[in-house]
């Protein structure tokens, strides 16, 4: 009986604390909340992401979905999947090679030795908001590859567009 009374008191206080936290959050992040209510949050986040990437990955050229698909259709570009092994194994862009960031730490990686330095390469990761493609592209440039680009739409956009995919399973 005592425990039930305490539980009831605790729930009431927890609810009060929740209301307090919600109030603080709404006031302190009003800019974010008003953007969300106006429906501009997604665009604003995309702009912020773009600005950040421009500063962080200055030397890396980028592609959108249509440009990446055009290169895919030409059939001369090597697509590199920067996601983890298990994600790649599940589903990836047809004929793409898996090269996660961790594997690039090894400079004598046989996967890199087989690729010509002047070959055109497109790197991609899972989502539009992941930076893995840019990171891997930057590393490849540092390793001496001259025609590296990052496709920023991510595998999800590619898959949703219905473009060719493959599985290793």
């Amino acid at each position: 009986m005592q425990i039930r009374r305490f539980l009831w008191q605790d729930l009431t206080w927890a609810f009060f604390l929740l209301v307090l936290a919600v109030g603080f959050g709404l006031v302190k992040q009003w800019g974010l909340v008003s953007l969300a209510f106006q429906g501009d949050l997604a665009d604003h986040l995309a702009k912020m992401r773009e600005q950040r990437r421009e500063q962080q990955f200055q030397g890396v050229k980028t592609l959108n979905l249509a440009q990446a698909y055009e290169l895919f259709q030409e059939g001369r570009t090597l697509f590199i999947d920067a996601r983890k092994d298990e994600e790649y194994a599940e589903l990836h862009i047809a004929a793409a090679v898996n090269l996660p960031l961790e594997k690039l730490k090894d400079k004598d990686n046989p996967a890199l030795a087989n690729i010509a330095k002047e070959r055109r390469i497109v790197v991609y990761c899972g989502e539009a908001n992941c930076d893995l493609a840019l990171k891997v592209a930057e590393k490849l440039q540092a390793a001496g590859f001259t025609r590296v680009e990052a496709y920023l739409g991510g595998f999800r956009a590619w898959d949703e567009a219905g473009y060719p995919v493959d599985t290793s399973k």
Partner: protein
Amino acid sequence: MASGQWPVKTKVCLGLLPGPLAYEELFPKVELGVERKQSLSNRKPKTENRKPSTQKSEKGLNWLLLRGLGIVLGSLFFYAGLQKHYHAYEFAEAVLAYRLGPIWLAGVAAAVLPWVELTAGGLLIAGFKRRSSLLLLSLLIASFLVVMGVTMARGLKIDCGCGLFFQAQVGPLAILQDAVLLAWAGGLYWWELRAGAVASSQ
């Protein structure tokens, strides 16, 4: 020595006298003086003298353990809340990636959730309304677990936005981390609730 001259003790040992009689003879009742009786009745048993201090130290240890575990848990959530508050737009991006509900809800969640963590974590550290803070944290973690379960079932490979010191993807590891935190917060809450009920009944 003739058997008639043997002292009583020896007779009893040899079985020449019956037990009850021998006991009476061996241990005759001694009438105690009034002062001795009083001193004996005033004397407390040794165990009674020892018990309160042992209980006290046990209670103190339990209290320290409870407070320590609460402070560590509170600090973890306070730190996580601070990180999310100062990087609110990055956190909003992580919330949006879950694709649960309308965009305005993701914005509100990104603004509010860090403050829930800050409030509950801060109060746990300060030691004020500990049980309610633990309850609030338990409910928060439980809802995270449900959301992550749904996301995993949908097959989304996204950043969970829940990594304390490094980024973590929605997956078994993130779920395990949250399950441990839930057990921690829930266990502490139950412990404090029972301790509070016992203390108030005494």
